[in-house]
């Protein structure tokens, strides 16, 4: 849905995230008395750890029910983001990552989605990498693997690419980039 972009009078803040400022020929929409000062910070290139994500090694993702209220930085559903007691060393299911484009923090599922090269089987890749097959979708070259034991997701992804058996290997992040339009 396209929201009508209206600028309306407020004392200090815009009223709604769906209400944005836009010069408009409709006079009733031009009643801007005050706008919050907007900082000018620019999107900059950030070194990512994989894809477009940077690992948040100082944050942990735990059930909100067991989190100390004072440690909670934010909550996501039934989960809480808290300061990690020690830096995260192994990137695995539940590790938090920050998207360098959206700046959103999301958790990893522990899966790697893979597009195999023609003629390559999931078992062949699994036996070479030690990754476990979560789903191998018949009729396609798509396989979902997960790390096992002490495997690190980023290292496993690099290992997958180095086998020469895959076209694409993508660590699954539980973030939805799309928005309603």
């Amino acid at each position, binding site marked *: 849905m*396209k929201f009508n972009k209206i600028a309306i*009078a407020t004392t200090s803040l815009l009223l709604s995230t*769906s209400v944005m400022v836009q010069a408009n020929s409709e006079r009733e929409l031009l009643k801007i008395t005050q706008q919050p000062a907007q900082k000018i910070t*620019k999107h900059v*290139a950030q070194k990512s750890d994989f894809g477009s994500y940077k690992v948040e090694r100082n944050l942990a993702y735990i059930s909100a029910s067991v989190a100390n209220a004072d440690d909670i930085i934010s909550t996501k559903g039934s989960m809480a983001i808290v300061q990690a007691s020690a830096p995260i060393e192994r990137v695995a299911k539940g590790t938090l990552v920050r998207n360098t484009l959206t700046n*959103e923090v999301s958790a990893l599922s522990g899966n790697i*989605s893979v597009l195999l090269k023609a003629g390559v089987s999931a078992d062949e890749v699994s036996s070479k990498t030690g990754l476990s097959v979560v789903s191998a979708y018949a009729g396609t070259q798509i396989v979902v693997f997960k790390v096992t034991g002490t495997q690190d997701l980023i290292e496993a992804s690099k290992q997958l690419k180095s086998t020469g058996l895959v076209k694409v290997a993508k660590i699954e992040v539980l973030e939805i980039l*799309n928005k309603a*339009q």
Partner: protein
Amino acid sequence: MNKNNLKLSLLSSAILLTLAGCGSDTTKKVVVDDRAPTAPSLSFSGAKQWIPTTGIINARDADGDALTFTIAENGEQVSSENGVYKLSHGILELTGSNFKYISLTGEDARIDYTVSAGGKSASASLSFSGITGDPLVNQQWHLRNSGQKSYALSDEMKAGMIDLYMNLFGDTEEEATASLEARFASEEAKLIAGEDMNVVGAYAQGITGAGVIAVVVDSGLEIRHEDLEANVIPNRSLNLNEGASDKTDPTSSSITGDHGTSVAGLIAAKGWNGLGGQGVAPDTSLIGMNYLGSDKVPQTDFLIHGFPGSGISKSDNVGVFNRSYGMGWPTHFSYSELGEAIQSYPNLMLRDGKGAVTMKSSGNSFGDDGNEGSLCEDNGANDLGLTCYNASFEPSQVHPYYLSVAAVNTDGKHTSYSAAGANVFVSAPSGEYGRYAPAMVTTDQMTCLSGYAGFTGGTIAAWGAAYGEAFAKSQFPFNFPGHEDNASCNYTSTFNGTSSAAPNASGVVALILSANPDLTWRDVRHVLASTSTMNDPENETVTFAIGESDFVAHQGWIENAAGFNFNNLYGFGRVDAGAAVAMAKSYTKDLGEQVITEWIGSGSVITGDDTMTSAIPDNSAEGLVYKIEVTEALDLEAMQFKFDISNVDMMYGLPDGTQTTAGMDLAIEVTSPSGTKSVILSSKQAITYPAYSLDDGDQPGYILRNGVLLSNAFYGESSKGEWTIRLMDTSATSFATSDGGRGDWGFVGYTNNDSASILEGIAIRAHGHASQEVGE
């Protein structure tokens, strides 16, 4: 038997025999007096609005004279076109004594008719009462545009505005009234009857979407909504939220409106149940998936494409996925092979291999998208009428498996927001904001305690806080609690965006597949391309100067060498349900096997090739021309173009706080072997940041990096021959931004690129089927 013999043979008590004389004369004179025909009055009850009622007018002429009918309404004779009478309340079609009546308004109707035979006549009537319909359907202009206002342009709104102008801006009542009446008159002139999707034409053929499943991948779907529940397949929807207690219920917990519930209603709100309005395909079944938002379960991307585990089996008659979502950043996103493999799954694997079609909103960023600030106000795109964001910036929009849908208004013309691009396939109604121009009337979260309509609706709350509730009510009378037509706030009249266009087109796809379930996903594309209406036929080109030469940045309508009309604003035009269903029913085209060529080209986009270093001259209409020969003869269904284009300044801003114009100055025009031109990038578009890969992150130094653009303009043409690709840098202008670069993505200005952009790699890929031309 001729007429006279017939007369003589019909000796009956009804024939008058006149005897001349009184018996003294033995000569008898027989006079046969022609008799008037008989005309029965007929009554019908329980018909459905927009669904034909058929019957026979059992008029007779005892003399066997030919019967002729005349139709009258309110005492005035109505003329016909080939037996079709257009009445104020419906359409009557007469073939001999057989009639077909379609109630357009749903009101009780009486049709007076006169039957004549042999110079005599009789009159009677056809009466229709108790017609089943939906109370809001006559406000759903996208289904049948009668010039209705759909709760926009109301008297309350005008009065509220006059009051506001007087109290807030100090206008006199005369000034305010004159101003508003002029505006209203201008807007009312855009309410044009007939500018719709012609769904009545589909229903007239007995097709209402039965037997087809539509999957709504969105923010949610209120599965118990009074006007959706009957079409929602029980226990087949998915709640994708991590930790959801009921995995089959994607009902949103938002109180400010659920996008997916409104989208679902446009596709398949139940028809003829006396509730709300109806969807384009009112008998199509629904599955909902609450994909948008955060904290989703693993493998969500697979589940929303119907992979195993989604509950969708390969034999389900899932005909269409609707995706009214997208991404908007001022960059071009790199292509993803994995993305294509996932997104093509419904097309290639579902419906027993015949495939499901995905309808995707083209985006709402024609004017702007916020992130880029005032860029398109400042670089001339807005004034020229060029799209700020190209619909093909997203990788999911540049393969033939997703059909990009643009949005049109009540006058058949472009909406203020619908993103354009050569990848757009079709367009569909969606409207504006429901105040000065109608939006969509569709389902909303139930009760006035949640939804766009109701106390907590975002717009109502914001306007109420700004100007008071009375004003908000005057501006959104239907959505404000208490409107007689919307007592429970279960419906909204302000839904819009390409979010609305996509589901309207999805509904048409459901109708097509209901009419002919044997069609493949490619057949559906062919039907849409062949039957869509050339709306806004006078749509004008947009031309601007590059140096001393002119560049046609928007081509308006073109006709390609295969006879298809195409426009970057509208694709093949506005979907026409009636025409599409008719073609589906009599479909004979054999598209054969899908054929996709390899990527053909050179440079960095071709594995093993050296990187090219071809400069694109600054501010030159001549540009850099590259030609690629295709030897395979395919009848084209889509054409992809892949580029690596770099510029040393295409980073994250220059030291002075400005950004290079290299990205926004890039334009690309393609000429097919048949001579058809397609502008796949018009320039002045929001490419202000380096290319971005969802798989590999930032791509500093690149305008396009593994960047794919799609054109549907060559549909039906042959792939064989020389393709000419002209890459241009369209400007040498530097400028400051009027907003001073507010926000995280804006810049204080843009500086013309000192260095030429470099073409490092270029390739094309054809999608189609083996040429069916004789001799090929």
